């Protein structure tokens, strides 16, 4: 994607450590921090607790290895801020 | 003229004849006296030519469907009377803002409120200019006979398409409900104007572009030009805006696209004005009485003439000023408590006496009444 607004780099200071193997590719989800309004829906609805809020309340993929591609987060994101990187 | 189609029609049916000649293919309306025959005529005629007629649940829905169909590419109109016209105003305002061509025929009856459903009036003249809230420029035409109801309806459609704006036909109840044998124009006899379509690619398309004549090209839905039509004040791309730098040009466009080319809207008829010292200024049914009054007064040696306004809005100020320049006195006859007289007063120099003759009891002004007034002011 070329849109400059899309980035999955949240505030690096608040990003928790993860066991995810980044050599396998990017994180499973792409979060557009410019569109995200920190409504907390994805964080709360995720059945596998993939997300943690950063200090603005926006989601960070703290446990990407837990993601099962269930799509709950991106079908419930009201701001179209989550898209899937999955194959 | 012998091979023209001769028909016996009432004024309301003449509106249908004129509209279909101009290319009408969509009508949405709601029954209201004294305009109902326009709807009935369209219900009967439109399906025969592949057009569409729909009776909506009210006048608000009617004008909404008319705007919707016009955006979808149809030539559309509705007809109504005072109470229905009042209900339509919000969406007529929407059409001014979104620059949607359409024609509204207001067959005027006595008011306010339910008023006099079967009686004549010209009291909606100012409403046709200032009806919807906000700033915009309106176009309104006023036929006076059954025959010119046909041609004025055609002209209304041409003006709507030319300027991308709603046009109101102000018809008097007595014209709408009179019958006459008239000659219909032959196909091709009167030019029909159609809205300008974009020629650029959808990517380059600017829906409310500030073109040279300020009228933007208008695609129909489904032609690949996906754009936003909104009643919110918008920029040339159609996106809503709150910026003063974009609000000014938009509202100026609504005014200037008509006012810069107002000569194209003007239609005036004069009768014996060459040497007239006194002039009747009239429109609609009153002009027919004035015509006869002029004839009778001339026989008695009074130098009187008539200026008949076919275009009411924008008020043809330059023409009225020039035509009445050599008159000492002007008599404005209207079927209301005085509406166009304010415009006449505004444009004529102070040394011309302006007299009014007003009737608002649901009856027409007769030639005799006009002659009495003439005698009074002589």
């Amino acid at each position, binding site marked *: 994607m070329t849109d400059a607004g899309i980035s999955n780099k949240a505030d690096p200071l608040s990003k928790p450590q993860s066991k995810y193997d980044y050599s396998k590719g990017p994180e499973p989800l792409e979060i557009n921090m410019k569109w995200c309004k920190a409504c907390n829906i994805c964080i709360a609805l995720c059945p596998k607790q993939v997300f943690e809020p950063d200090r603005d309340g926006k989601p960070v993929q703290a446990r990407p290895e837990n993601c099962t591609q269930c799509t709950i987060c991106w079908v419930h994101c009201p701001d179209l801020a989550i898209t899937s990187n999955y194959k | 003229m012998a091979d023209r189609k001769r028909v016996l029609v009432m004024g309301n049916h003449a509106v249908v004849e004129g509209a279909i000649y101009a290319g009408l293919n*969509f009508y949405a309306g709601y029954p209201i006296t004294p305009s109902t025959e326009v709807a009935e005529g369209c219900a009967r005629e439109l399906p025969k030519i592949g057009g569409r007629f729909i009776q909506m649940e009210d006048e608000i829905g009617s004008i909404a469907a008319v705007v919707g169909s016009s955006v979808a590419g149809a030539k559309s109109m509705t007809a109504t009377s005072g109470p229905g016209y009042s209900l339509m105003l919000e969406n007529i305002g929407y059409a001014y803002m979104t620059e949607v061509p359409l024609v509204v025929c207001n067959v005027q009856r006595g008011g306010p409120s339910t008023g006099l459903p079967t009686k004549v009036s010209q009291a909606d003249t100012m409403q046709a200019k200032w009806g919807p809230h906000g700033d915009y420029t309106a176009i309104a035409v006023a036929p006076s006979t059954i025959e010119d109801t046909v041609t004025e309806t055609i002209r209304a459609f041409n003006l709507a398409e030319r300027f991308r704006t709603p046009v109101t036909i102000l018809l008097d109840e007595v014209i709408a409900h009179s019958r006459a044998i008239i000659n219909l124009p032959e196909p091709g006899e009167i030019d029909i104007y159609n809205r300008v379509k974009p020629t650029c690619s959808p990517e380059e398309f600017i829906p409310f572009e500030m073109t040279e004549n300020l009228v933007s090209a208008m695609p129909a839905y489904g032609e690949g030009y996906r754009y*936003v039509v909104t009643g919110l004040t918008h920029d040339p791309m159609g996106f809503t805006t709150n910026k003063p730098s974009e609000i000014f040009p938009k509202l100026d466009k609504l005014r200037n696209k008509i006012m810069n080319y107002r000569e194209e809207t003007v239609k005036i008829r004069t009768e014996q004005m060459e040497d007239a010292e006194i002039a009747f200024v009239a429109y609609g049914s009153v002009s027919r009485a004035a015509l006869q009054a002029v004839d009778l007064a001339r026989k008695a040696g009074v130098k009187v003439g008539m200026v008949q306004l076919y275009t009411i809005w924008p008020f043809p100020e330059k023409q009225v000023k020039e035509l009445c320049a050599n008159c000492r006195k002007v008599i404005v006859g209207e079927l209301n408590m005085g509406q166009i007289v304010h415009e006449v007063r505004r444009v004529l120099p102070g040394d011309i006496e302006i007299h009014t003759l007003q009737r608002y009891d649901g009856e027409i002004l007769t030639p005799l009444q006009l002659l009495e007034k003439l005698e009074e002011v002589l």
Partner: protein
Amino acid sequence: MATATTSEKAKQKSDIFLKYLRPRKGMPSVWCAGCGNGIVMTAIIRAIDKLGLSKDNIVMVSGIGCSSRMPIYLDFNALHTTHGRALPFATGVKFARPDLKVIVVTGDGDALAIGGNHFIHACRRNIDITAILINNNIYGMTGGQGSPTTPSAAFSTTTPYGNAEKHFDPSALAAASGASYVARSTVYHATAMEKLIGEAISHRGFSLVEAVSNCHTYYGRLNRQGDPVTMINSFKEKSVQVTKAKKMSPEELKGKIVIGKLHEVDTTEFCDVYQSTVDRLDGRK
């Protein structure tokens, strides 16, 4: 940011929003954080994408209100009209161009209060329009006034002591008025909503999808229903599938939201019937 590991399918999935968002307009939307309108919007995007409809042939019509801003964001032919009048505008578009798919996005105040008459008549006419009614029980854009779907005793800025009126059931109203497809879903059931919207768009005739949504900013705050997450989760608890609801008593169904396809009849569509008249009269001038 597509990488070697991203398959074509995933690429499609992640591009879907950009495909349907209007270029040069862009997000973020005007809606509050967590507003259900956005969830409904994504459901509409996915439903249309699955149907494979051309963007050029879709007209999205709306009136006034929070939900009615949606057509401005989506890259279809957009008609953002006056308060309550979306359905008659849409009727004009559809009747003039029956080949176009017309989708109306409306709210509870827009469709049922100021536009109530147009709503029942569009249903009665059974014109091929899909209406997506986002029901959040309140007027959001003007700041939390009571709407025709504000429940009895509920609070709003115009019912500060509790609503004395009864509320409409939009789906029942539509079915009783003649709509030939009626379904209800909530923003919690976003995937089911996508399916129902898809069915509604494919249905020939007037179809209504009532999307029960959250206005935590006004309705939630004034009625102590919590944040968006709490409200959305409460829809999960309150919802009953229509098949299950049929076996439940009215007492058991009190306060529940019955979801699923509620009503579908196979009947003639207005534009089709009119066209058959036009065909029959062809050239009889």
